[in-house]
């Protein structure tokens, strides 16, 4: 995949949408859709969230694809229905084009409230690419903790109080859970590594069955960093192994990026207001616990990928 070629492709999410400048979600969407072959049609589905409310303000739409939103917890089941309608109508000769079906869901709509619908849709084997634009909290409603929120992170529902220093639980390993569904393609990616993400999107779109990509998509409003640093923050997430890049293709685990010098988590968290309290001595234990979690998860991943 060449950058030069990608620049000639038509953007399927147009400019003029109302997402924040520096929003990771729109970058994830563009990188995924740039990987779509020119000769396929696409239907995008969104759960309720930032992407949805900012791109479909009636009577406008930022989508050049067909697009559907119905509610928060059901993007996967809604798109299951569209995909099944396609299978039925295509078989009957009533629709002739070649279609692909893509969900872009935030972590709230994917890890938490939409988890059941996602699991069901993957188990049923719909030909669908489910992309989670993971910004590690409910950003649309104003930065509340989700199952994707990091240990120790400040959010408005895991505030830093005199007794409790931010979120007390570790995040859920959703990518691993999706791999455990035994679907043909699962990957973890980051908006900082565009070629890696675009390659993964191309593989997912070519998969004749369900696929899932979990994309680290920083939100500067929720993470509290300057808006021009989105890509930099995502890159530090990868380099510190907080967010490793890997894929699981037909059950084969493969690491896509191995840092020469794995950065300590301080280099990642020190730029983010949501972790500011962790840099204080009084919260040293939480910081150490966070590093320990990252190290353990990284070691497990290396083992799965045969990289020990």
């Amino acid at each position, binding site marked *: 995949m060449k950058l030069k070629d990608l620049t000639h492709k038509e953007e399927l999410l147009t400019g003029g949408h109302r997402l924040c400048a520096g929003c990771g979600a729109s970058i994830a969407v563009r990188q995924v859709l740039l990987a779509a072959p020119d000769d396929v*049609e696409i*239907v995008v*589905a969104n759960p309720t969230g930032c992407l*949805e*409310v900012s791109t*479909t*303000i*009636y*009577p406008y*739409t930022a*989508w*050049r*694809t*067909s*697009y*559907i*939103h*119905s*509610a928060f*917890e*059901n993007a996967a*089941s*809604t*798109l*299951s*229905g*569209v*995909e*099944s*309608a*396609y*299978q*039925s*109508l295509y*078989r*009957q000769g*009533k*629709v002739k*084009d070649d*279609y692909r079906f893509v969900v872009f869901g935030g972590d709230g709509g994917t890890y938490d409230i939409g988890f*059941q*619908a996602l*699991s*069901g*849709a993957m*188990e*049923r084997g719909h030909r669908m690419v489910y992309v989670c634009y993971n910004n590690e909290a409910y950003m649309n409603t104003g930065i509340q903790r989700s199952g994707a929120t990091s240990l120790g992170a400040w959010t408005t529902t895991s505030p830093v109080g005199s007794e409790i220093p931010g979120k007390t639980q570790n995040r859920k390993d959703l990518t691993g859970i999706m791999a455990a569904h035994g679907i043909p393609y699962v990957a973890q990616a980051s908006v900082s590594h565009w070629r890696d993400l675009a390659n993964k999107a191309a593989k997912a779109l070519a998969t004749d069955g369900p696929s899932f990509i979990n994309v680290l998509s920083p939100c500067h409003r929720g993470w509290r960093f300057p808006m021009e640093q989105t890509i930099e923050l995502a890159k530090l997430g990868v380099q510190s192994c907080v967010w490793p890049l890997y894929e699981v293709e037909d059950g084969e685990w493969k690491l896509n990026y191995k840092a020469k010098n794995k950065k300590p988590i301080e280099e990642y968290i020190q730029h983010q207001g949501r972790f500011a309290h962790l840099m204080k001595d009084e919260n040293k234990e939480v910081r150490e616990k966070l590093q320990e979690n990252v190290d353990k998860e990284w070691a497990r991943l290396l083992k799965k990928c045969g990289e020990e």
Partner: protein
Amino acid sequence: MSRPVAVVGTDAVAEAMRQIEPDVVAAYPITPQTAIVETFATMVANGEVKTEMINVESEHSAMSACIGAASGGARVMTCTSSQGLGLMWEMLYIASGLRLPIVMPNVNRALSAPINIHCDHSDSMGARDSGWIQIFSENAQEAYENTIQAARIAEHPDVLLPAMVLLDGFIISHGTERAEFYDDEKVREFVGEYKAPYTLLDSENPITVGSFDGLYGYFFEFKRAQEQAMHNALPVVKEVGEEFGKKFGSNRGYFETYQLEDAEVAFVALGSGAGTTRAAVQQLRKEGVKAGMLKLRLFRPFPEEELVKALSHVPVVAVLDRSLTNSGGPSGPVCLETMSAFYNAESKPTILSYIYGLGGRDFNPQMVKDAAYDLVEGNIPQGTSYLGLKEEDN
């Protein structure tokens, strides 16, 4: 030619689904609806229908998948009961708000708690404001016919609203009755091809479904248009019923009137309870009591004007409800609608609320007869009456 058959209600509904042959069915099993999905899944497995069947992981996903499929231009059906309808709640409003003509037989069952799998109407009555057309069935034959007609009503360009076909849990769903099934070809001819006005799968015209509409948008206008569609459904239900009658012989209108002309006391009933009430009216007539019945078929939209015309000459109207509104006032939803319909009428009967059969409690003609005798003898009850309730002193 029609085929006389002995069937349970669930098979009658499944037969209608086979003949309609939707493009997509997304459904989840729940007692007492389960036999519908089982029978239909067998039809799919045997290649009797072209339908793409989605065995979803919940009713919420069933309705969500139906919404997706209908937005993709497909003719879509599902079916459910009770808690299943409850789990769909959020999506019921979205299906009607997106103006998707999804057809859903709902086998009426009580809502928990306490958990009870038997018939009452609390599930669908709770959904009366969700923007769905609601058609009640007295027996398997009507459940079959109503399902076929629902597709035509829902898909009518002046309507484009989802439609629920109601049949009583166990009493209709699991009771074997004589019914007549019409020829496949004739039913298919009646139902016709469905062409969605908009679809996600038109590559020349990609569309956005389910837009965000905020404070300065058109939400109010959408809702007003949706309400108008419900008004438009009234003449459409009539037309479709008439056309069905011409083709197959039975035109059931908004409601059936039975012995109402000279009635001194009339019962309003819906679902299988209408059969019990009809039997009671027959016995009362033999005993010299001028009783009558109005069996309501269409509950949403509510045929207010016609109902008032049919009942305004009757001195006392007893409305039989198989669910509660828990309003603290007259307790049944059908009673509330009836009272409301008469509010501006010049001549109005005395209208009384009777609750019966909650959680499948037996309902028999004697209960109706006792109520009728009380009323003709001038013993007008105060407030809501409960038929068949175990009283504390018993």
